[in-house]
């Protein structure tokens, strides 16, 4: 999973950088920092679990968590597109709401276990 999050991080970093290059120096923090979501919520926790032998979430909880990260990341990038274009759309608030619901679902999903137990 950590590898997938790393791929998403690198992809969003490149996407944001390339988008900004063609945006006539109009910038958006949502676009520039969209990579930080899979990085901080995916890569770093995965590394921490592996390094410090922490409890790992159940597959169900891990799936909800991944969905939440994907939702927030896509939402951040799209908000960046709106900002750079100079327009608005209230529907963009669906992304953080859906992301929060998915994260809550991840926490509510039972079944944490130690990595060594799972091996």
């Amino acid at each position, binding site marked *: 999973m950590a590898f997938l999050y790393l791929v998403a991080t690198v992809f969003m970093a490149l996407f944001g950088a390339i988008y900004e290059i063609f*945006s*006539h*120096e*109009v*910038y*958006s*923090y949502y676009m520039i920092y969209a990579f930080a979501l899979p990085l901080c919520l995916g890569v770093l926790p995965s590394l921490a679990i592996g390094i410090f032998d922490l409890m790992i979430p159940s*597959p169900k909880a891990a*799936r909800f968590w991944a*969905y939440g990260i*994907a*939702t927030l990341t*896509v939402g951040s990038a*799209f908000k960046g597109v*709106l*900002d*750079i*274009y*100079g*327009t*608005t*759309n*209230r*529907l*963009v608030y*669906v992304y953080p709401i859906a992301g929060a619901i998915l994260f809550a679902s991840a926490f509510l999903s039972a079944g944490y276990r130690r990595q060594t137990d799972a091996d």
Partner: protein
Amino acid sequence: MKNKKPTIIFIALLTAFTTYISLDTFVISSVYQAEATEMNTKMFDNVEKSEGETDASSGKDSSNSDESQSSKKHHGPENGKHGKKERSSSTDTGTTELSVSDEVAEIGNYSNNDFESTVKEYTVNDTKVYVADVTVNSAETIKTAFANDTYGKNVTDTTSSIASSHDAILAINGDYYGAQESGYVIRNGIVYRSESNGEDVLCLYADGSMKVVDPSTVTAEELVSEGVWQAFSFGPGLVEDKKISVSENDEVGKAMASNPRTAIGMTDEGHYLFVVSDGRSDESEGLSLYELADFMKSLGANTAYNLDGGGSSTMYFDGEVINNPTTTGNSSKERSVSDIVYIK
């Protein structure tokens, strides 16, 4: 496959929603009011006409100066990016570094019973800037129009098409209200949107005065009752009470670069400036907001306001587009916009 099913469903839902919101933002038209051509001219009943009425002249009399060096030109296509708005902060400070060429080319002039207009081309900081100096008998002469005479979202047309359909002599792009979901929209004395977006609003009053207003202090309906004929929500205000009201670090949204710009200003009641600058090209670098404000002040503006810029910046005069609208800088083409300001 069973384990992947929820993921497939999630990806499908996320993709479908993102596709829908993209179409809703950029493609799908929503008509809020068709045939939006009503004009509330009652506010002019009590306004005295200005003393210096323009001389009657039979028909059009636009002429190009022999010394004109303007390069009137035409288009190419593109998508546009117009910056998001931020409230201006600081006041006029220090010296200007504006470089205005001594060469000013007169592109043309026009006069009739209702207004006089002279259009000139300046070179400011390696940028071509087109200035229409307009004197009107009544603020009623300054009108606005929606694309396809329709108030709605993603209802757009080029400035020149909208202008020609209204027999405009002079026109510039407006505030592209259609790209926003809020911000006062008052056109020809009619309130179309009364939800504020918190940004400065430029008000043109029936008595010919012009003022930048904080929408948190007044509703759109109150503005009309006070005699506001036109109101625009883009901003920021550039010049207020003869002082520059943007700092060198201010920008529309996050656009820190020089760009094509459109601005409107007033030197005296009944005397206005329509200004469009080119940009993003080898010929014209573009102007920052501060440079634009400084230039408006140098023209004598008491009040000036920034309208939608970038690829939207277009000036139409006497039947043709006289600036070089561009979005990417690679080719010149008018962008379709949602509204214009015009005179006929």
